[in-house]
């Protein structure tokens, strides 16, 4: 039975109708991980015993007739979410020995929904990267071409779903880390509005930007996942106290009269022309579905990468100061005094990209530089956010490419941080503004997947999923699978 070609909604039906048990389904995906992940390196930890225990419990719930849509469904978590009793590394040597004493809220919510956790997924170290090459556990390969990167930072999350080693996964997105790998791996990813999903137990990188979201095969699956993930959490002071709708309720709405904004800044210099053509044909398809296309401007979007590389490093330098070799995580051998303990534990525990960002942040926040860097960046952030506010007076959603290029070769950009940072030129602005965004498979350039980015207004996740779902009803890009994993 080729269960890996089924999406989450289909698997849910199979479980409910007792065509298959959760234990069988879980074992099926554990076998696929065993068979295929040697090449891909998408998992840091496979939690076999834990998964089968959860699956047995899920089967009992299903037998009692109390199953929800995710009961017994195997998923995998990005290794940034704390899991009690199972290693949480965040892709870093610093946390290679770290077993969290508690579960992240996202993990708890999936447990409550009866989902089965197959394991923890590889990622760029502390979510800092766009290629999954900064991981302490080595790079992840792109299932469409194993010489290429899967994108990042949620590289393992995207690659594992693209190769169907798990039906769906979780990711986090600080500057594009769900959408860019989803685009490069040909799957569907959603970054919700800032504050929609609790950050409790999600290891912090840049607290004013970080947001968790689903990575899945379809928009419908992403909606099912978000139903479980979203909601107010008193343990996260920035989580938003706002009712959670059923994110699958509006999927069927037609798109007649939908106003799509195309920002000219997202189609200019730097965009691969084949990628641009694919995005334009996706937009054409939307016109055929009844949408109206309006040219818009986001005049300050060119400032988003510069502003981001102040805000994110500044917040990271503060957040990562907790890793000091004293209470948890890596400690250097034979420290000669306390300062040596701090410096060597951090120097040996963090990789070069993390160190670069901590240093940029420490510099930007140091005496005399605050106004020129952090304060300036926060003002620029306002300009960027105002651009979107103006745009959303005229349009319902904004569309463009998720990434300027398809997946690049492993090693191609790893020595040039700036080239790497520019992978996220189209995704970063939405994080700075706190808006929700999606990436949806829209075609192939040179046999590698291309993602269409759809950006919505605050808390318009239902609208985004509806817009993506209608496209997926009329296209089959999201059903394409890399040949070697069929």
């Amino acid at each position, binding site marked *: 039975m080729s269960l890996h070609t089924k999406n989450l909604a289909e698997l849910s039906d199979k479980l409910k109708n007792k065509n298959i048990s959760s234990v069988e389904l879980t074992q099926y995906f554990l076998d696929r991980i065993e068979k295929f992940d040697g090449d891909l390196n998408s998992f840091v930890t496979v939690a076999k015993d834990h998964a089968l225990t959860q699956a047995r419990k899920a089967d009992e719930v299903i037998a009692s007739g109390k199953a929800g849509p995710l009961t017994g469904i195997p998923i995998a978590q990005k290794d940034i979410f704390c899991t009690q009793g199972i290693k949480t590394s965040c892709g870093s040597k610093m946390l290679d*020995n*770290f*077993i969290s*004493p508690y579960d992240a809220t996202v993990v708890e919510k999936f447990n409550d929904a009866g989902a089965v956790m197959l394991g923890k997924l590889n990622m760029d170290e502390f979510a800092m990267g766009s290629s999954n090459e900064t991981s302490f556990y080595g790079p992840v390969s792109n299932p469409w071409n194993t010489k290429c990167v899967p994108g990042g930072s949620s590289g393992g999350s995207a690659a594992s779903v693209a190769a169907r080693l798990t039906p769906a996964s979780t990711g986090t997105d600080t500057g594009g880390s769900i959408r860019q790998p989803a685009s490069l791996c040909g799957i569907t990813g959603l970054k919700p509005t800032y*504050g929609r999903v609790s950050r409790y137990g999600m290891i912090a990188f840049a607290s*004013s930007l970080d947001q968790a979201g689903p990575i899945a095969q379809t928009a419908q699956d992403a909606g099912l996942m978000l139903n479980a993930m979203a909601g107010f959490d*008193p343990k996260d*002071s*920035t989580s*938003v106290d706002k009712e959670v709708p059923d994110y699958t309720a509006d999927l069927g709405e037609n798109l007649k009269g939908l106003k799509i904004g195309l920002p000219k800044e997202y189609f200019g210099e730097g965009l691969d022309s084949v990628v641009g053509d694919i995005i334009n044909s996706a937009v054409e398809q939307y016109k055929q579905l009844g949408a109206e296309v309006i040219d818009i401007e986001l005049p*300050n979007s060119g*400032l988003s*990468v510069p*502003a981001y*590389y*102040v805000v994110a490093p500044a917040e990271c*330098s503060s957040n990562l*100061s907790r890793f*000091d070799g*004293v*209470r*948890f*995580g890596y*400690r250097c051998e034979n*420290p*000669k*005094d*306390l*300062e040596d*303990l701090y*410096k*060597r534990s*951090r*120097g040996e525990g963090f990789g*070069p990209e993390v*160190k*670069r960002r*901590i*240093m*940029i942040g*420490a*510099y930007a926040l*140091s005496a005399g530089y605050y106004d020129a*860097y952090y*304060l*300036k*960046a*926060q*003002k*620029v*952030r*306002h*300009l960027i956010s105002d651009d979107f506010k103006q745009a959303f007076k005229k349009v319902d959603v904004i569309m463009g490419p998720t990434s300027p290029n398809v997946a690049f070769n492993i090693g191609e950009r790893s020595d040039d*941080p*700036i080239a790497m*940072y520019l992978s996220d030129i189209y995704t970063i602005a939405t994080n*700075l503004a*706190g*808006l929700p965004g999606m990436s949806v498979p829209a075609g192939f350039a040179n046999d590698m997947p291309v993602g269409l980015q759809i950006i919505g207004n*605050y808390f318009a996740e239902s609208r985004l999923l509806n817009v993506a779902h209608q496209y997926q009803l009329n296209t089959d890009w999201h059903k394409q699978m890399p040949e070697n994993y069929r």
Partner: protein
Amino acid sequence: MSLDSDDVKKIANLARLQIDEADIPDYAKNLSNILDLVEQMDAADTDKVSPMAHPLDAVQRLRPDAVTEENQREHFQEHAPKVEDGLYLVPQVIE
């Protein structure tokens, strides 16, 4: 903005990071490039713009001043590098 080796050493010290001497020129180059990228912000006129602290203009939520957490010291210390009698051990600080 161009940073030299001394700047890198100063920043690494501020951030309590041990950096190998041999890697300093690379850090100086990369950090300078990042700051050049960042300084593209200077092109924007932000004199009349207020800084954005939160995307939804939310303010810090307060909770009642009540004890909600129980003491889990032993549980938390299970994974600490070095503890003794419930205390975290570090190299001697006071002679």
